[in-house]
């Protein structure tokens, strides 16, 4: 475990010393500040505007961070051959990958928490706005969505180039947020007799993660009922941990017998 944590901390250090970390953080801050301008313009809707723009900024920049930092992590180690001395130091390949994954997740968590604290400060200073339990829960669940996205980025970058890995990760994220729609389309197509196409959509539904379960943005903005708190607190996080674990196992297996040229 010591080796995994050493690699994870080094990965975190690498990410926060990289310019991209600061570029993403600055853009997020600008967007959060922009929500204040919009809130002033939208009379009576200011609370919703701040929360909508704020949560959107957190999810977009969290996603960008997990994808763009993640897809480069393993690829750069191979490309710059830094992995040679790591493997020669007795680090097993699975320890390396898990360390990289944890380091990436730690970076994303730091970024998301920083943005969330800033959003909370904005809400606190704004007269007609208040921090709700649903808002905290939304950020909590978003961290688990990022756990899955980080695992996807690591999986793809363990066998393909950064550009392709970024495209694949982003596609999975988009489809992952359309999961419920996929199931609905599959049902309709089945009723219309297109069984093969319906089966294919159902397969994609089961194969890709259902990321919409981690999305409580509407419930925060419109103060809707969130349903079972137990699901949000435990069941969905467990689902994210389980799904990420499977992705990591696939990455580890594909990495285990690979020649590092």
């Amino acid at each position, binding site marked *: 475990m010591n080796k995994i944590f050493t690699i994870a901390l*080094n990965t975190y250090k*690498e990410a926060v010393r990289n310019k991209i970390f600061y570029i993403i953080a600055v853009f997020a801050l600008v967007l959060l500040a922009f929500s204040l301008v919009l809130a002033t313009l939208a009379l009576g809707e200011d609370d919703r505007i701040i929360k909508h723009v704020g949560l959107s900024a957190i999810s977009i920049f969290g996603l960008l961070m997990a994808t763009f930092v993640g897809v480069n992590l393993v690829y750069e180690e191979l490309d*710059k051959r*830094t992995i*040679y*001395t*790591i493997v020669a*130091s*007795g680090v097993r390949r699975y320890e390396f990958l898990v360390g990289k994954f944890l380091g990436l997740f730690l970076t994303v968590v730091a970024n998301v928490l920083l943005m969330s604290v800033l959003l909370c400060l904005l809400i606190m200073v704004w007269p007609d706005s208040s921090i709700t339990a649903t808002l905290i829960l939304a950020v909590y669940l978003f961290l688990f969505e990022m756990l899955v996205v980080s695992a996807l980025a690591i999986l793809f970058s363990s066998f393909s180039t950064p550009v392709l890995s970024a495209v694949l990760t982003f596609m999975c994220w988009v489809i992952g947020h359309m999961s419920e729609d996929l199931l609905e389309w599959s049902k309709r197509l089945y009723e219309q007799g297109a069984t093969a196409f319906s089966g294919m959509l159902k397969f994609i539904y089961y194969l890709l993660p259902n990321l919409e379960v981690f999305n409580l943005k509407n419930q925060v903005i419109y103060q809707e009922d969130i349903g079972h708190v137990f699901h949000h607190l435990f069941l969905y996080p467990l689902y994210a941990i389980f799904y990420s674990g499977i992705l990591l196992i696939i990455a580890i297996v594909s990495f285990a017998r690979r*020649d590092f040229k």
Partner: protein
Amino acid sequence: MAILRIQNLTKEYSTGFLGKRFRALNNLNLEVEEGEIFGFLGPNGAGKTTTIKMLLRIIFPTSGTAWLLDKELGEAPDIHKIGYMPENPYFYRFLTGQEFLMFYARLSGMSSGEARKKVDELLEIVGLTYARKTRLSDYSKGMVTRVGLAQSLITNPSLLLLDEPMSGLDPIGRREIRDLIHQLKEERKTIFFCSHILADIEMLCDRIAILNKGELIKLGTVREILSSQSPDYIISLEGLSEAALEEIKGMNIKKYEVIGGFHHFTAPSQEDAQRIAQRAMADQGRIIELRPERGTLEDYFIREVGTRE
């Protein structure tokens, strides 16, 4: 006792769209004894780095095997007894020299206190204490090589695999690394090192193996290898008449030059040198020098590898 044994080690790669097989290393067999400095020599693409990468499980052999410190490839190796420095080490450029070495010390399982002590000691040995807080991105090539060597010594290993440890160093830096390698030998460490800087190999190594296009073409001590070729003979003369000079030039000689007023002839054999000496003495000429000249490792290497091109 052999600390490293390589048996029929072979590596093939698939190249191109059709996956054509390319053999980077073919049936390599060799043994390295404990405490010796073993030079692994060959031009670029000979298979030197491929061999080291297989020994460290960075890549996997197509066939054959090896034993490092009595552990076969695939068994969990006693990795703390093996140090490795890669060729052109691309290390984490965002780390300082001290952080970089701390990272490897922590990976090897040292506590924070032990690691700090070891890192300070190694920075001192490789002469980088002054640059310990500088990021590797600001290091010169020679400094990166030195910090790479320090990294390979973190666990105080008994077997060191060094891939081109002198590359990128100026003459003073090379001398320092050579001294360090000698010092490591005195500590009974075994050093297996790849290089194409032949002068360093000649000065440092107890035994060498020469590799070309994935094939082992020579194995032995530098003396054995150089004495296996017959030497040239240098004869320097003065006071020769024009007629004698012309006659000697017509004999079996490899080279003729005039240096400082003396006539220098290079004869391919002792008999040829004697014939030249007799002709000079018959002409009342004076023999300044007559000596055999063994070629350098570089001469041997260029001839052996060159003829196989």
